[in-house]
């Protein structure tokens, strides 16, 4: 009787035509709830992993919550067509999402965090430029962990290396907190919704912001002056995954959706709708040429190499970051 797939995912990951094709092929209807990492986790936590048949958290945010709340099911890799994935990505993701010897996540879409810059009015090239005096009042960032981590890289530290050492990490974050506090006068607002930020840049109220690549490229289409810039100290790389909630009711549909989505032609469609890149092998060739061009422009060879991929977040780290972020927000 389970004819629907309840999907908890990100905005833009489920284009209409893809759903239509999927339904035609498999008979499963798709019910989409869009969300973000934190909300996905907290929702699944509240339901103890019920309510959805497939979720798409980032790969670094699977292991921790899984240990803590046991909200996912181990994946049955035999039901996956592994050859549809870019092998290196599949392996890396599997490694990061393994808890107790079981794999909980498969890669889907990847992208980076970096700077969106209106090149007419701002010359920013690294995260530190967000706090440069010349950009005062025209800058925006999120008060979330990526910002802290980016600042750490910008000041030459490797926060990921300190993930295991809570004390050192805490000290580092405190420093970054101070930095962000000083930077606060530069900030017009801390963005929370993508739309808020895009509107700000589009209208020229903002010149520089820390954001995902896709947003930058989206703006670039309308205004060539706005570019996504991979920061000198390295863009932050993330991979969104497929994970099956612990009490998902329709695993068959979930696996069908995964396999369907990783087909190169589908993956390409999804990727261009999301404005990002995919872990599907062979989708590359079918990508939107504009996006490819934008990617090439933002990521010269060196920048591509310099991408810092998020490792799995150990428990406790987020508490440390959270308190620092709260302080930044409270600072006058």
């Amino acid at each position, binding site marked *: 009787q389970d004819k629907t797939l309840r999907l908890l995912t990100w905005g833009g990951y489920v284009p209409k035509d893809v759903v239509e094709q999927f339904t035609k092929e498999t008979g499963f209807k798709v019910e989409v709830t869009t969300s973000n990492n934190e909300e996905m986790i907290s929702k699944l936590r509240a339901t103890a992993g019920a309510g959805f048949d497939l979720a798409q958290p980032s790969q670094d945010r699977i292991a921790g919550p899984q*240990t803590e709340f046991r909200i996912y099911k181990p994946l049955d890799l035999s039901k996956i067509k592994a050859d549809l994935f870019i092998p290196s990505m599949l392996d890396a993701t599997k490694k990061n999402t393994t808890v107790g010897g079981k794999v909980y996540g498969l890669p889907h879409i990847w992208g980076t965090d970096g700077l969106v810059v209106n090149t007419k009015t701002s010359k920013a090239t690294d995260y530190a430029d967000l706090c440069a005096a010349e950009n005062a009042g025209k800058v925006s960032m999120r008060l979330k962990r990526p910002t802290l981590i980016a600042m750490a890289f910008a000041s030459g530290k490797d926060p990921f290396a300190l993930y295991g050492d809570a004390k050192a990490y805490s000290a580092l974050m405190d420093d970054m907190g101070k930095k962000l506090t000083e930077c606060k006068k530069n900030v017009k607002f801390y963005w929370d919704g993508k739309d808020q930020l895009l509107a700000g840049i589009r209208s020229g109220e903002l010149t520089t912001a820390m954001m995902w690549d896709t947003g930058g490229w989206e703006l670039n289409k309308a205004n060539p002056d706005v570019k996504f810039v991979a920061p000198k100290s390295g863009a932050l790389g993330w991979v969104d995954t497929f994970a099956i909630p612990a009490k998902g009711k329709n695993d068959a549909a979930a696996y069908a959706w995964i396999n369907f989505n990783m087909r190169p032609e589908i993956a390409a469609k999804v990727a261009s709708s999301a404005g990002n890149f995919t872990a599907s092998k062979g989708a590359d060739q079918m990508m939107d040429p504009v996006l490819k061009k934008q990617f090439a422009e933002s990521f010269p060879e060196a920048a591509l190499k310099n991408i810092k991929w998020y490792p799995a977040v150990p428990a406790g780290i987020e508490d440390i970051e959270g308190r620092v972020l709260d302080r930044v927000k409270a600072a006058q």
Partner: protein
Amino acid sequence: MSAATHRRFLLGVLLAPALLWLLGLVILPHVELLFLSLQARVGPGEYAASLDQFRTFVDEPLYWNTFVRTAVMSVLATGVTLLLAFPAAWYIAKVAKGRARLVLLVLCLLPFWVSEMVRTLGWLILLRETGVVSGLLQAVGLADQPVELLYHDATILVGLVYASLLFMVIPLVNSLESLDDSLIEAAYDLGGSTANIVRRIVIPHAAPGIAAGCIVVFMLCLGNYLTPTLLGGKNSLWFTEQIYTQFITRFNWNQGAAFGFLLLFLSSLLVWAGLKLTGQRFGAVMKAS
């Protein structure tokens, strides 16, 4: 007697839903909240009794500050709402007649029937740097460049006041309507000035309504999430936002519960103090709302 048993049976039938509601949806959930707040995580999926959550609140000035700020802004918003709503309520209750009064009252209600989201969207369109008001100011020459009206504390205040007006106007209209015109005429006839009549006759009479409106508005402001998050600036801290953050982005239900409980407790304290100060009783006041 059978009439008495019949009555007891009826009482039971009526008492059941009320008790289910109060126990199941009000009391026990809050007991659970208290219980949660008194626990702390000691390991993955393991919790133990602890006062850590409350200690965090005391130790971390941030939370304390946020709370005070939220309370102060809410009190301020309540005051402004009262000042704005009173003349309007007076007009509706005492000056407008017949159908006009009804129409005005419905006009007051209307904005509150559309979602709070819509109202906030309206303010966003109006107040943003490239928004309507900024444009108007430039057009009439009061500003020579775009003015950012969003993301200030004053903006939050406007938003809060806007969101609360109805809840002040209705109890005020109700209590002012019950004020007999002849009392005002009598006071005037005995030589009272407008100010004196307002102070001696109108306000004492409307006191339960004022208190009811103030309590509801204060609580609404305190518990508001949308307005401070969407209209508030980078410095905007709102206690509900903290609770939301703890629950949703930090997955720290225990801390969130502690905050929730503190908010409830401290706000009740404020309301209680307010009632004591003005010599009102909660039950009577809520009936006036």
